[in-house]
């Protein structure tokens, strides 16, 4: 692609951000608040050291969740079930991970493995239902989310209930010291700030793995071809059924790691407070970042920043839900603009090509 067109394609998220800020400002004006003052407060609060650590901690699971969604998106498969998958994985990992204590790296690896296996099994059900029962994955994954939530509530209050604790909150036993990931504060030299979760490098590594998987392997090629043109993929020898199930399993495997940042770095146990909603938020990040590892990283940081910086608003008399609206605006506008720009680029390419043909004859 020509550099000019490449630049055009980068403009969509910037336009979307601008328009979303504009729309949000209009709403703020409508409810009698000063938009410039509001955004200034958000930026000021969001850029303190304490907030930045929180933004990064929030970015980690969001980014992994986006990767999980993107694996499916790449082949035109909508895994809306990351939500249920990561929660179930985190619960099982937290519950089983407490039952042993061994050398730390192995222990942490095993906890992650449990989560990955649990989540990808859960995701595989949706793949199976799509391939053999013809149920669209959007419906099956949504239903599996509800079923998963019910299962978690059941397991948490019966099987995995921590009976030593005499409090009424359903929660698992805390992970032993060897199952906890130390914070990065000493490594990056920010001892005076809140804990920066140790999962950050692993998240970045997962981004790299995702990149290699999609763009440097045959499997990734098959996924991309199927997403771009299922018929062509079939004729090139791709088995769509097998690929659907594999894609669901890989997507579920990434989903399993979504909860690991919070679990290993901060919670050390699964409680009813374990952060929900990361799966749905990940869909937004994947859409915003166009399934690209760097794009999604920026998207996750943007959403993480917005969410953190909005925390100040309630104290200053502006409903902090304005941030949810703004994120949704960004999302809706960006998908529209991506489509407009995609069409613009296609017409430009056709024009360029026909020019070339004309000049050569």
């Amino acid at each position, binding site marked *: 692609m020509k550099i000019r067109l490449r630049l055009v394609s980068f403009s969509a998220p910037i336009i979307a951000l601008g328009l979303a800020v504009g729309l949000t400002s209009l709403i703020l004006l409508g409810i009698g608040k000063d938009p410039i003052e509001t955004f200034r407060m958000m930026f000021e609060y969001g850029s303190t050291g304490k907030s930045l650590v929180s933004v990064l901690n929030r970015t980690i699971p969001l980014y992994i969740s986006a990767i999980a969604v993107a694996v499916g998106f790449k082949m035109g498969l909508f895994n809306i079930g990351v939500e249920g998958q990561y929660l179930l994985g985190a619960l099982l990992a937290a519950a089983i991970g407490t039952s042993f204590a061994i050398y730390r790296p192995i222990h942490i690896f095993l906890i992650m493995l449990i989560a990955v296996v649990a989540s990808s099994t859960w995701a595989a059900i949706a793949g199976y*239902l799509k391939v053999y029962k013809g149920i669209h994955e959007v*419906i099956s994954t949504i239903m599996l989310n509800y079923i998963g939530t*019910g299962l978690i509530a059941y397991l948490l209050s019966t099987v995995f209930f921590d009976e030593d604790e005499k409090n009424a909150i359903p929660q698992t036993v805390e992970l032993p010291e060897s199952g906890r990931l130390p914070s990065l504060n000493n490594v990056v030299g920010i001892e005076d700030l809140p804990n920066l979760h140790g999962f950050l490098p692993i998240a970045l590594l997962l981004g790299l793995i995702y990149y290699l998987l999609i763009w440097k392997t045959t499997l990734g090629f098959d996924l991309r071809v199927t997403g771009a043109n299922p018929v062509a993929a079939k004729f090139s020898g791709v088995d769509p059924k097998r690929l659907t199930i594999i894609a669901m399993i890989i997507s579920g495997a990434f989903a399993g790691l979504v909860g690991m940042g919070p679990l290993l770095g901060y919670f050390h146990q699964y409680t009813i407070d374990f952060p929900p909603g990361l799966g749905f938020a990940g869909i937004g990040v994947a*859409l915003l970042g166009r399934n690209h590892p760097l794009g999604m990283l920026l998207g996750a940081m943007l959403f993480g920043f917005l969410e953190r910086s909005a925390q100040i608003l309630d104290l200053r008399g502006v409903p902090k*839900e304005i941030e949810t609206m703004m994120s949704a605006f960004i999302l809706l506008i960006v*998908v529209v603009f991506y489509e407009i720009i995609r069409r613009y680029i296609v017409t430009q390419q056709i024009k360029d090509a026909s020019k070339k043909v004309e000049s050569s004859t």
Partner: protein
Amino acid sequence: MNELFRIIKDKYVILTPLFLIIFIAQFEQYSQLTSSGTFGSALRLSIPILLAGLGGLFSERTGVVNIGLEGMMIMGTWFGAWGGYMYGPWGGVLFGLIGGGLFGLIHAIATVSFQVDHIVSGVAINILAVGAARFFNILAFDGIAFASSTASPRIEGEIGKFNFPYLSGGKIGENETTSLLGNIENADIFLVSDISALLLGFTSNISYFTILALLIVPLSVFVLWRTPIGLQMRSVGEYPSGSESLGVNVYLMKYIGVIISGCFAGLAGAYLVLEGPNVYLQGQTNGRGFIGLASLLFGNYRPFGVLMGAGLFGFADALQLRSEEAIQGLLVVVGVFLIMLTIRNISQRNIRGSIGTGLLGSLFLFWFMSSTQVPIQFIYFTPHLTTLVVLSFSKQKFRMPKKVGVPYKKGELN
């Protein structure tokens, strides 16, 4: 008669469990399964699913997949509660419809005018709706008693209810009449009492909103299959460029379909509020928009099919409100049904299928024998599990609109 056999053969997936349920309900502790109260709440809980499904029907018939139904329904719950609070229950109905329609319009702009991927747009709308409902609620009900960020204040007044005279004890003028069906239900005759309980559930305490919703079913059939605009709408979902060449305004038809879809989903949301707790609550829709979509698939893109699907899922939804013992009875129903499927699979020499169903069936039966109650947390997802199970066993030949989900741009051959 042959027709009847054909229906039985086609729909054995529903009919067999239905018969099993009636059978099980003869035992005292499971009698709740077929009580008029259960059928009454089944009807009430079917309506939102039905309306969402019909919404999906109008959208998908014009070729636009509407995953955003859930979000439009959420808008319906909030706008319904707000309209109800400001202007009384019927105001709630109207505003629920408008709120859903507005989000339908957003979906139409994105998918029709800008040809955004339908599922992507739908997902974005669902995310927007959750935030918007919460935001509106905080803005509109700030400082009003009993309102919070996740709940609206209570709506005063109710939509009128109606009992059929003689059949279910309705009044004629001021005179009470007997409840014929109620008497038969109490007589406990096999099948007869169960059927009269069903009829009693469907004829007593029926709100006018319910009647309105049920009337939409034949109305949809009429509009889509008996009017010129209905023909145009359906043709757009099948063959847009062909329709355009015949002078049909493809974009307009798609806009109409998607906006009607949003309006119905909004009505579904308003129904949940006005016929439920009379307040807006966050998360009230609980995936019913998606279940509505499932009932559309189950009903093979036809209004009366949607009605059947909605009835089935509504029944599953109703059981969770009744008694935990009743759900326990369902375990044996599922178990026996799976064993029957196993026998069928074996006779058809489908070894893999029979192992699967056999294992699952014995699991359910074992569960039934080894426990006295289904955990309360499982009851909560009965409708969602039912949706998955029903969709996976009712392996029908879906006849979906040909170009559903394919973005169409004017002038393209499509």
